[in-house]
């Protein structure tokens, strides 16, 4: 069994690398549009399992020996919003865009956490599709406004591929953590 904090840190680093990994020249162009949103998948995984990952880099986000009055959620949102600056630079997006996307998704997941705990895998996949589709719509809208990037099927393709990868991603993560369940 891997240490929680170490595992999550490694997962975040891997998702960052996967999100900028470029395909070989021989790969067909359409494959580039189907890249899963690795960073958002990792974010969703982390927020859903958040009580299990209090160690390491994430220790600062949690209040110690105190009843959680919403401080934890607020800290998580602010930290994710700050992390968005790094993602903006990594992906070449305007500052603020990825922070808003990450914080919004985390807000939704934290707000309805108890309800989401009871979802089946299929329901989770549908939820992933909707969240990432909306995130990609916002991203494409901003890029369209800023750089004139045209609307296309990319939001749909990215959301679809992310949804299909989710079971594999989540089950692998659970296995790496020795079958630890969400709490």
């Amino acid at each position, binding site marked *: 069994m891997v240490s929680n904090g170490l595992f999550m840190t490694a997962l975040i680093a891997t998702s*960052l690398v996967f999100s900028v990994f*470029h395909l070989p020249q021989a790969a067909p162009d359409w494959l580039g549009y189907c890249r899963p949103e690795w960073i958002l998948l990792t974010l969703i995984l982390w927020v859903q399992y958040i009580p299990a990952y209090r160690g390491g880099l994430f220790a600062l986000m949690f209040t110690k020996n105190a009843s959680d009055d919403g401080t934890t959620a607020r800290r998580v949102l602010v930290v994710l919003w700050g992390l*968005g600056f790094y993602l903006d630079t990594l992906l070449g997006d305007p*500052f*603020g*865009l990825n922070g*808003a996307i990450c914080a919004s998704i985390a807000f939704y997941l934290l707000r309805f956490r108890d309800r989401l705990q009871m979802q089946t895998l299929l329901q989770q996949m549908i939820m992933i599709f909707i969240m990432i589709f909306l995130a990609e719509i916002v991203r494409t809208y901003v*890029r369209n406004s800023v750089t004139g*990037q045209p609307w296309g099927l990319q939001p749909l393709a990215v959301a679809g591929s992310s949804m299909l990868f989710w079971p594999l991603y989540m089950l692998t993560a659970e296995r790496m953590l020795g079958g630890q369940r969400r709490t």
Partner: protein
Amino acid sequence: MVTLLVMSGVLVWLDSSGRRLVQSGSVDRLEGTAKGLWHIRGSALSLVAPVYRIAKAPYVFYDLMSDISSDRQSLLQQREHLNTRLLHLEESQQRILYLQAENARLRQLLGSKAQLPSQAMIAEIIGVPPDPERAAVIIDKGQADGVLPGHAVVDAQGLFGQVVDVSNSTSWVILITDREHAIPARNSRTGVRMIVGGIGISDRLVLEDLPASTDLQEGDLIETSGLGGRFPPGYPVGSVATVEATQDSPYLQASLEPTAALLKIGHVLVIAPAATDNEAADFGETALSAAKDAG
């Protein structure tokens, strides 16, 4: 949450307007928060470079393995080919140095403003942003190496792009095929000036607003004109692939095939804008003495 979203919206707006100014070559007009954000992006670029380097590692490893597994015969053939190429290039270099020196002297006699590119610097492409809709690369040279926004980037075949964001050790380069990119150019056969624009497709450029009466043929080489001072003149941009005139439009519909190898991951040259008169005169003298030394 609402506060974060409002702050995000304001930041997106400020950063977008700042980046538009940078890409249009007006870095000096940046002020206030937009300038601060531009500096923050420059600093943050250094932090994201390791991620791009790791993402490129499998390809570097593959190249290394290919080199190791090459047999002796193919290496000897490669060396022979490179030696021959080097001889041809050295011969061309001698003629170019002589012509540059002569050109500089003639311009001095005519009192014409000299236009010579300053030093070129080799840079390695360390990353490609993942979005297929955007044409950009990240190179391993930055402000510490003298790279500044607006510097032109070329490869062995032709014009590659221009630097838009700079950190201390890396730079963000948009390619000539990017939707937001346009180049003042001219037809090398006729000398007619034109604007070449990107459309977001890696093997296609378009000639914008070219009157239907323009003398343009398929296969014509389009090169940079040097107008605007951003791109040095004479670098190949692309060859005309299609020319179509319709009765409905007063403009030609023409497309180019870029000469630069835009999809390859390798090395490029970063070129500073044209030198000043004095620098050009010095460059002419240096080139002349080098040509004399070379015989």
